[in-house]
């Protein structure tokens, strides 16, 4: 089977936006053209080949080009010669009697009638097409954000889920905000849309006050953004139920990727009545969801009774003073790196 090399043709495609808004503000280190905010579904240049067009399922639209959204498309898993769509369920390519092709997801959707010629679809797989696709290499969908890499189909998806150039998700805790973008954009979004407090500086001294701490609703939380060292950090403070009862947790996340997060350290301290609890660690990246960091207990956790004890007074009101600071400290490549598998 010959492999076809890719001919890059410039053609413009407009991408439909079906998953919510996606914005960029001017990027600081990405080579590609910046896109102004508030434009939905920016247009972009795309590389296309005639072979690639052959692989396009006539029913489900798919786009291999950035940006933005996970539009469903079929790809190929060479180990099983199966067509693998965007959401990782196994699929195949089928032929109708006239030779028109269709992916298996769509085969079900069209009730076994070829959408091109209305003939009945059998169970004939198009192995040749599957093999051709397997040899096809395409750029990462984030290429216009700077990713220079090219992948065969079956590894492209995996790369894209981890690509360092992919946009970040809004780090706001609480209901899942679907906004994505680069860091400067997300900082403005947090400030303007979520009304999050912004602080400049690397030290903090907060008092968390709650007059009736008995009413700990699950996941009551607060977020503050700190700007220091030319970077942004999210300080989360939460009250929630942990198997053992109500707890308060404070932790820091870095607005950037994991590798850069490891060049920083932070400490948090609570205390009172001759006792003091201190936490020191590396901030997690906002690539890890807020829930994931919270559930890994990777931060300062205090049981409510101890928090009330630290609050002093009659211990009926929560008046917890949390102090902390952020500094630049390179962790060794091994430390701060191991996020244990907590699934078992």
């Amino acid at each position, binding site marked *: 089977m010959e492999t076809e090399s890719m001919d890059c043709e410039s053609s413009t495609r407009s991408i439909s936006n079906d998953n919510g808004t996606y914005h960029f503000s001017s990027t600081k280190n990405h080579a590609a053209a910046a896109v102004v905010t508030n434009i939905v579904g920016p247009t972009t240049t795309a590389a296309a080949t005639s072979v690639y067009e052959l692989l396009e399922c006539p029913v489900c639209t798919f786009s291999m080009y950035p940006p933005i959204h996970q539009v469903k498309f079929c790809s190929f898993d060479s180990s099983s010669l199966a067509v693998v769509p965007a959401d990782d369920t196994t699929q195949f390519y089928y032929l109708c009697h006239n030779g028109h092709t269709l992916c298996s997801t769509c085969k079900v959707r069209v009730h076994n009638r070829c959408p091109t010629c209305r003939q009945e679809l059998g169970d004939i797989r198009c192995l040749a097409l599957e093999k051709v696709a397997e040899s096809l290499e395409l750029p990462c969908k984030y290429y216009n954000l700077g990713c220079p890499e090219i992948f065969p189909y079956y590894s492209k998806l995996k790369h894209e889920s981890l690509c360092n150039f992919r946009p970040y998700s809004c780090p706001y805790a609480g209901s899942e905000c679907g906004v994505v973008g680069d860091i400067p954009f997300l900082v403005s979004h947090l400030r303007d849309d979520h009304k999050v407090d912004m602080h400049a500086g690397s030290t903090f001294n907060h008092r968390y006050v709650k007059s009736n701490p008995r009413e700990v609703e699950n996941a009551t939380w607060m977020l503050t953004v700190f700007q220091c060292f030319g970077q942004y950090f999210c300080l989360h403070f939460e009250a929630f139920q*942990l*198997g*053992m*009862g109500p707890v308060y947790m404070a932790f820091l996340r870095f607005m950037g990727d994991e590798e850069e997060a*490891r060049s920083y350290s932070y400490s948090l301290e609570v*205390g009172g009545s*001759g*006792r*003091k*609890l*201190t*936490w*020191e*660690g*590396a901030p997690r990246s906002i690539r890890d969801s807020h829930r994931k960091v919270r559930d*890994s*207990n*990777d931060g*300062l*956790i205090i*049981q409510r*009774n*101890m928090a009330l004890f630290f609050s002093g007074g009659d211990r009926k009101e929560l008046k917890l003073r949390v102090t902390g600071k952020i500094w630049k400290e390179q*962790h060794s490549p*091994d*430390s*701060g*790196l*191991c*996020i*244990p*598998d*907590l699934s*078992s």
Partner: protein
Amino acid sequence: MEPRINHLQIESQVHELLDYPVCTNQITSTIYQCSNDYTGEVNNDKEKPYNCPYSGSKCTVTGDIRWLLQHLRNDHHVEMHDGRSFSHRYVHHNPKHLHHATWMLTLLDCYGRQFCLYFEAFHLKKTPMYIAYMQFMGDEEEATSFSYILEISGNGRKMTWQGVPRSIRDSHKTVRDSQDGLIITRKLAMFFSADNTNSKELKLKISGRIWREH
């Protein structure tokens, strides 16, 4: 179980049973006997006897500090460390098998006094936890003249607890249930234990020191 001997007219064969010489002055002594058949004598004049701080077993021995230290060393085989600072590693190859209220006790000797360092695995409403704390072998008043720090570190993270040692007048269970120490979930303990090998072993490095505040 606790024979009260008012007079000290001891027959010779009874005398042999006793490890300690019985004092022959007129002051009444009370002799205590624990279920392990160890006997000891307490001089009631000085201060109220302390309960043996060795938790877990049903040891009901009481006595003064000096006597308890010997008892802990000889009968419970507890280790004694000299010095104000220490560093221990608690290792368990399968921490899920650590039962509720598994614990370890180490003794520390400094400032002419002794301290008990406890490390325990327990369940708090079904959540597996670990707690480490110190208790002072002496009364409450003197206990408050000390402070201690416990530190757990690993995997680029560190948690530090600074506290005041509770007197052993408080049972170890009281202190544990009040969570007056360095307390972490097992999840977090696994975080500290994590390394590149992806093993599920518990490897907690706990270090600390004691100092006198006034």
